[in-house]
């Protein structure tokens, strides 16, 4: 059984690695988007899927991560490979602060989720007015010439960005798998399932929940850094928006919260559906704005009703693969 799973993974990995050689501009950008959400979804999954803390404000870390690295590059010419450390540090601190505040004062469940939304919105409006970071008009990073590759400054071809996000997603996958089977994984799941029982078994739930928040935030920071340099432009309204937070969680929820492959499968399905419908709509010459959101809504609804454990759990059973 393990051989079969390894075979599947190996095939998938080779396809993904060789893709830029055969794919066109459009397919590459779609795949990059898919991998972006696969990565961000996995980061969020650690906090929710493993530890059971629902955050609807993860766009906060995307935004802070993006602006941290972008500001260093824009104002001081410091490249993203150094800037990302600031991004990670800031987001880890933020994650810790929000977690500490919430768990110290017993803010749990829906109230915790509301608090995460509040922080993200606070940051969004705040950054809209922060002139040094471009305010609501946005911040724009210098774009390099078409075919020049400046890996150091993350300026370059779409293929370069693709490989960066592919590497990030693969690393996230490895990290998630390792964490889930470690002490952290067992403790987080215990906390998720029944916090009182977990405490009675000697688990310091405050510390472990904090750890989940910090790791999740730090990972999401990297997605932010990537986003800043990939799009070369940052807008508070987009980066910190609650829509972005919702987009991040759609993948894991549809694919299967708490599983290792769930977020990836979910992100894949959503990307295929979204781009697929766009293509069909364009091919037919229709104009249906908002069709993407509509499709997301329908799929989410269908999954919650028919496959509440997510698509991956059902798929894994069919393929006789165990995580």
């Amino acid at each position, binding site marked *: 059984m393990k051989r079969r799973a390894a075979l599947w993974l190996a095939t998938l990995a080779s396809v993904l690695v060789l893709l830029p050689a055969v794919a066109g501009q459009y397919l590459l950008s779609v795949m990059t988007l898919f991998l972006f959400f696969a990565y961000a979804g996995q980061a969020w999954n650690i906090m929710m899927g493993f530890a059971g803390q629902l955050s609807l404000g993860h766009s906060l870390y995307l935004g802070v991560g993006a602006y941290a690295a972008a500001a260093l590059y824009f104002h001081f010419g410091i490249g993203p490979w150094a800037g990302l450390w600031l991004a990670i540090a800031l987001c880890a601190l933020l994650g810790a602060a929000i977690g500490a*505040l919430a768990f110290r004062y017993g*803010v749990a469940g829906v109230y915790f989720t509301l608090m995460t939304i509040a922080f993200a919105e606070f940051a969004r409006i705040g950054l809209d007015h922060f002139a040094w970071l471009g305010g609501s008009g946005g911040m724009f990073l210098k774009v390099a010439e078409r075919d020049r590759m400046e890996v150091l400054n993350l300026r370059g071809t779409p293929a370069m960005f693709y490989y960066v996000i592919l590497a990030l997603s693969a690393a996230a996958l490895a990290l998630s798998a390792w964490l889930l089977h470690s002490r952290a994984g067992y403790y987080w799941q215990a906390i998720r399932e029944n916090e009182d029982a977990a405490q009675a078994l000697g688990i310091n739930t405050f510390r472990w929940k904090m750890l989940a928040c910090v790791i999740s935030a730090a990972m999401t920071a990297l997605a932010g850094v990537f986003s800043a340099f990939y799009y070369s432009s940052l807008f508070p309204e987009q980066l910190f928006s609650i829509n972005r937070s919702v987009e991040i969680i759609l993948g894991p929820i549809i694919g299967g919260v708490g599983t290792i492959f769930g977020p990836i499968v979910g992100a894949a399905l959503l990307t295929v559906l979204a781009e697929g419908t766009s293509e069909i709509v364009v091919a037919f010459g229709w104009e249906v704005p908002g069709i993407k959101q509509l499709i997301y809504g329908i799929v989410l609804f269908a999954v919650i009703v028919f496959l509440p454990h997510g698509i991956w759990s059902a798929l894994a059973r069919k393929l006789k693969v165990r995580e």
Partner: protein
Amino acid sequence: MISCGGIAGCMMIMLVDLTPGLGPAYTLLAFVIVIVGGLGSMTGALVGGVLIGVSEALAGFYVTPSAKGMFSFALLILILLFRPRGLLGSKL
């Protein structure tokens, strides 16, 4: 309850420009008001509404108008931390 929302919407249009995307902002604001005022309390919702409305207007006046939302969310965070049942809510 839903009809109340409808009436409120109609009255608001005389003050605010109409766009399809204006819904979510008010939904969030409604959450803030209900939590601050207190879940399960009608008076609370009224008090919360007045409180948020007035403070947003004041904040908008003394600071930049477009930043008034920050004040509401900051207030929400404080309430969630120190008085989750809200100002007039019943004990959870």
